[in-house]
């Protein structure tokens, strides 16, 4: 499949160079679950970005806030496209579903099923479930930016970013949209997700939080084949899970990240 789009703007959010590599300790487990060789973005979730609506923090996971942080930075670049026709701007997102409430699960693991409803209600505020839905970070981003075109969310654990890039390409080529905001994020918030990514990578690979957003539009003069980024971790490179292919794409495109 040949490519019609060019990156016009991109942003990556990654831990700063001086953020230490460390073992991540999840003490919700006893003994604690330790995921070795990780790097986090050194900011509390609510400090990652100032969301236009502060209520949204309650219904977003850390991954979701990170996604919004990357995507909101595109507001100015998206402006002219939204002004022309907000129904022809799309969002294409690759993201893991948000973390479960581990404290609640731990509490209920030792309780009878008759207690389930009361304890679950006590330990989960009503919006907690919304933070687990994979599509809501992108939906929130669309709300904040005013995007009314398609908002597509993919969650294949390794290929989602490729699916998002491909869909953006198809929609641009077909004229469904004139601008495609492709975005992805990965956080260390979810213990079992961090463990899964850790065990899928070579021991020396550092698992790090990260997010990327890329704005693609059609370049009528472009003649290129698709070069989709690889899914697997690169030897010696840090790895941001589901978001890594888009981070690679953003960094390798001609527009500086």
């Amino acid at each position, binding site marked *: 499949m040949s490519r019609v789009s060019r990156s016009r703007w991109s942003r990556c959010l990654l831990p700063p160079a001086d953020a230490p590599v460390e073992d991540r300790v999840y003490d919700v487990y006893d003994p604690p679950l330790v995921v070795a060789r990780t790097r986090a973005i050194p900011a509390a979730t609510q400090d990652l970005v100032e969301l236009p609506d502060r209520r949204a*923090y*309650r219904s977003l996971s850390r991954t979701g806030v990170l996604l919004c942080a990357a995507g909101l930075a595109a507001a100015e670049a998206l402006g002219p496209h939204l002004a022309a026709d907000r129904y022809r701007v799309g969002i294409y997102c690759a993201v893991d579903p948000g973390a479960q409430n581990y404290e609640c699960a731990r509490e209920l693991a030792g309780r009878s099923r008759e207690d389930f409803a009361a304890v679950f209600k006590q330990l989960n*505020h*009503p*919006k907690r479930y919304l933070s687990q839905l994979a599509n809501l970070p992108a939906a929130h981003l669309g709300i904040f930016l005013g995007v009314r075109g398609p908002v597509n969310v993919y969650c294949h654990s390794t290929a989602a970013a490729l699916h998002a890039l491909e869909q953006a390409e198809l929609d641009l080529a077909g004229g469904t949209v004139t601008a495609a905001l492709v975005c992805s994020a990965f956080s260390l918030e979810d213990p079992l997700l961090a463990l899964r990514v850790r065990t899928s990578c070579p021991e020396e690979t550092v698992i790090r939080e990260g997010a990327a957003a890329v704005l693609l539009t059609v370049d009528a003069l472009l003649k290129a084949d698709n070069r989709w980024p690889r899914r697997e971790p690169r030897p010696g490179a840090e790895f941001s899970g589901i978001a890594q292919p888009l981070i690679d794409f953003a960094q390798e495109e001609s527009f500086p990240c």
Partner: protein
Amino acid sequence: MLTDSDLLQHVKTSIVTALGTQADELTPETRLFEDLGVDSVDLLDVSYELERLTGCELELAELFRRQDAQPGRDLTVQQLADILKGRLEAAEGQ
């Protein structure tokens, strides 16, 4: 029994926690729907926080349905505290 001042403070704390509102933005006259843009899910969330603080279950969804059916009616922070007081007194009476 909680004082009127305690109850008002609990309501404010619940709104701050649930909605991310700044505490100094809230007065007893602040209107939930008109001033804070509260929707039905927000009301459920405020209700949850109030229940955590006071042990009192409030069926705020019903209040929202009433408001939705009668545009122009709103619920102030003070009125929410009054409703809470009424429910706590009723529960105590039982």
